[in-house]
């Protein structure tokens, strides 16, 4: 898990001598334009670029990226880094055999690429058709104030994605024109994509178990119940 929370900037994966000049250049230009708004970054060589920006610079990041040619809006969502408080207790005993018994005390929050400090992180992706590269943006949101400026004035497509993020995670977006529920009925209680939102059907009836451990047909098996 440690290699996940990589330190700042251009550390390609261990002992990989290759560097990604194109993405390094994009990162350098972005950093020079945004100033100290860039909190962390991660490059996977030949594949992808992650940039974590300050919440105060979230809107500016979109504008800067758009002016750099990243005009295709891919998606905007969020990640809840809290380890599920239900652990694997919703699983059947077969799963426990495979996965081991669940840890007793809750695990610490470990953020992914480009680091992070808070439980909730905004996640957005823009793409440049001319450069053929995408940037994944992340932004920490403090627990006591889950708001961020809206991107919908820069990328009109962010409108719906922010509505979705609002109901799924309970965020709010300053300046959003139409903050109503996207998917859920208005009387729905809770934010489903938060990790502490339980799937009640699973708690009532436990998961029947991993079926993949069943032997394939023709493979000798002492139980003989594989079909």
């Amino acid at each position, binding site marked *: 898990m440690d290699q996940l929370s990589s330190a700042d900037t251009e550390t390609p994966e261990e002992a990989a001598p290759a560097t990604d000049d194109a993405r390094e250049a994009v990162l350098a230009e972005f950093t020079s334009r945004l100033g100290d708004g860039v909190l962390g970054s991660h490059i996977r060589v030949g594949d992808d670029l992650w940039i974590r920006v300050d919440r105060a610079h979230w809107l500016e990041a979109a504008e800067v990226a758009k002016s750099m040619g990243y005009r295709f809006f891919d998606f905007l969502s969020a990640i809840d880094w809290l380890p599920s408080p239900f652990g694997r207790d919703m699983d059947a005993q077969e799963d426990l055999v495979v996965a081991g018994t669940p840890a007793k005390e809750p695990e610490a929050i470990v953020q992914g690429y480009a680091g992070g400090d808070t439980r909730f992180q905004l996640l957005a992706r823009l793409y440049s058709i001319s450069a053929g590269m995408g940037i994944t943006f992340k932004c920490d949101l403090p627990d006591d104030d889950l708001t961020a400026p809206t991107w919908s004035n820069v990328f009109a497509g962010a409108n719906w994605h922010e509505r979705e993020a609002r109901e799924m995670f309970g965020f709010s977006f300053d300046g959003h024109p139409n903050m109503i529920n996207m*998917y*859920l*009925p208005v009387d*729905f209680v*809770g934010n*489903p994509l938060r990790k502490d*939102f339980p*799937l*009640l*059907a*699973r708690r009532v009836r436990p*998961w029947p178990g991993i079926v993949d451990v069943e032997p394939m047909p023709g493979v000798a098996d002492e139980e003989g119940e594989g079909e």
Partner: protein
Amino acid sequence: MGLVESGKLPKPLAKLLNISRKYSIWAYQWGLACCAIEMGAAFASPRYDVMRLGVIPFPASPRQADLVVIAGTVTDKLAPAVVRLYEQMPDPKYVISMGSCANCGGPYWDSYSVTKGVDQLIPVDVYVPGCPPRPEALLEGIILLQERIAHEDMAERWKGGPIVVS
């Protein structure tokens, strides 16, 4: 139809009535999810051709329909619309629940937004299993429904007052 309502329908007449009802089922197309495409293949494609069974799949409104095929996932948000649709249909009305989602929730058995079975909302006559069922399976379901209609006692069905859906 006074005979039906008073419960004094002679047997041959009842049989004739049932045969004619059986072969003129007006099916309302209520496509929800993946199963709707297989229902479309059964209803609108020349290969499966549901009309040879006496099903007419073109009523424009549920008020003209005898049968509704619930083909796909019913979500909690959609549930009021399903109940309303059922209430709009004139009696005698039949429901085929097509596919695992409509039967019991299917692959979304643990989802927070899916109704686990349309029979929680409206009475279902025939369940067609599968995810999605092949068009042939839906045709088999329709044949089962026709058998059911053929053996139905209309007077019995009418005896107990108006049908109320809670």
